[in-house]
């Protein structure tokens, strides 16, 4: 299969200290190989911009293999682009056509202030985790592997919830900029395992309260989050979090 190249027009959100209010800027992206990932395409454009003396486009990335959760931008109105269960770094240019115009915007949420261009501050997600998204193991050596029985079904559900990479696409895609899918995944993942039960009550209450103080919106069950989540987290995790919260609030 021969490599194809396509020509694109990018409209990219630029925001930095010389442009504090931000604006969409138009750049050509010519001769883009369809084998490239979206981030590689941005790398190529950045080389051109640098050669022209324009500040390169800032964007977050790390693993570039869909596992770290660093990358992400809203591409033509869709978080991580239009392909299902795909992070931006795993989105390939073969899914675009020659001549396409691509609008690239940062995650937009009051809780995620823009740092520069497409880079946003997702510290609010860390603060939700700090409020209780962990288990405390304060002493002792490692336990025998099978000392605590875990039903297979629960192990699998916990594993699915634990697939959340904390990218924030759910917040970006939510019409209300709510972090319920992220929090639901984190609370569910621990609530399903015996190791997570001792702190389950405290965790549910304090993570949910933390979410409120950080400026996220409320869930309206629009289900846009599960449709955009690169890890296929289901809104059933939100229902499980709600159960955990109700149980904790009533006991």
């Amino acid at each position, binding site marked *: 299969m021969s490599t194809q190249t396509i020509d694109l027009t990018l409209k990219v959100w630029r925001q930095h200290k010389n442009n504090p209010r931000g604006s969409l800027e138009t750049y050509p992206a010519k001769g883009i190989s369809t084998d490239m990932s979206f981030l590689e395409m941005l790398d190529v454009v950045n080389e051109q911009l640098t050669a022209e003396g324009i500040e390169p486009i800032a964007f977050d990335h790390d693993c570039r293999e869909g596992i770290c959760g660093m990358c992400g931008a809203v591409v033509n109105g*869709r978080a991580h682009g239009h392909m299902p269960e795909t992070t931006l770094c795993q989105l390939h240019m073969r899914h675009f056509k020659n001549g396409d115009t691509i609008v690239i915007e940062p995650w937009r*949420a*009051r809780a995620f202030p823009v740092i520069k261009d497409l880079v946003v501050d997702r510290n609010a997600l860390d603060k939700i985790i700090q409020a209780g998204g962990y288990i405390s193991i304060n002493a002792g050596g490692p336990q025998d592997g099978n000392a605590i029985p875990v039903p297979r079904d629960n192990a699998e559900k916990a594993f699915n919830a634990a697939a959340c990479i904390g990218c924030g696409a759910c917040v970006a895609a939510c*019409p*209300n900029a709510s972090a319920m899918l992220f929090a639901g995944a984190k609370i569910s993942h621990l609530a399903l395992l015996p190791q997570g039960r001792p702190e389950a009550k405290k965790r549910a209450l304090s993570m949910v309260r933390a979410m409120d103080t950080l400026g996220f919106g409320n869930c309206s069950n629009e289900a846009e989050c599960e449709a955009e989540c690169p890890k296929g987290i289901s809104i059933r995790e939100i229902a499980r*979090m*709600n159960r955990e919260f109700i149980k904790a609030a009533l006991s």
Partner: protein
Amino acid sequence: MNWFAQNISTAIGKKLLMAVTGFGFVGFILMHLAGNLSFYFGKDAFLKYVETLHTLDPIIVVVELVLLALAVIHVSTGTILFFQNRRARTTRYAVNKTAGGRTIGSRTMPYTGFLILLFVILHLSQFHFIDHAVQTPWDAAVDTFNNGLFALIYMAAVILVGIHIRHGFWSLFQTLGLNNEKYMPLIQTIGIVIAVAAAVGFFFVPVYIRAVI
């Protein structure tokens, strides 16, 4: 009480208020619909139903007070949610596209809700806050629907009620934590059936009344 205030004001707490009050409304709508079906059996049958209902007057007073309380909670919480959710995204996207999660119902909850509120105020002024000594409920219906504009307003309003329930019904179960692969499809179906039944059942009352008078 502190624990209650603290938890009910969270994102989940507010949604629980919406879910419980919304569930109460769905219950009322179903009873109201069942009662209103007697319109279709003509004036005498309808007034007989009204008479039977009056034997329950003490209970009705309680139901009315509960409904009023539900309405105050549902509307005020819904308003708070609406403004909080708008504030959660201060800069809007230049391009907005759905990933396929939203429905017409879910997109429009605050707007259909607000219009239903206006409708209920109008409706109560025409059917409830009238002199029942001179006007039977049948007369009220005849007087109201005689006016083509009011007939149209009622027909439009009950479609909005159907749209609001279409999303609201499954959504309230999700909020209460009752979402599971096994029974969510059934809940979805029941929601659609109730939404369609309410919209269709009420829709033809004005049509029928105008046909028989």
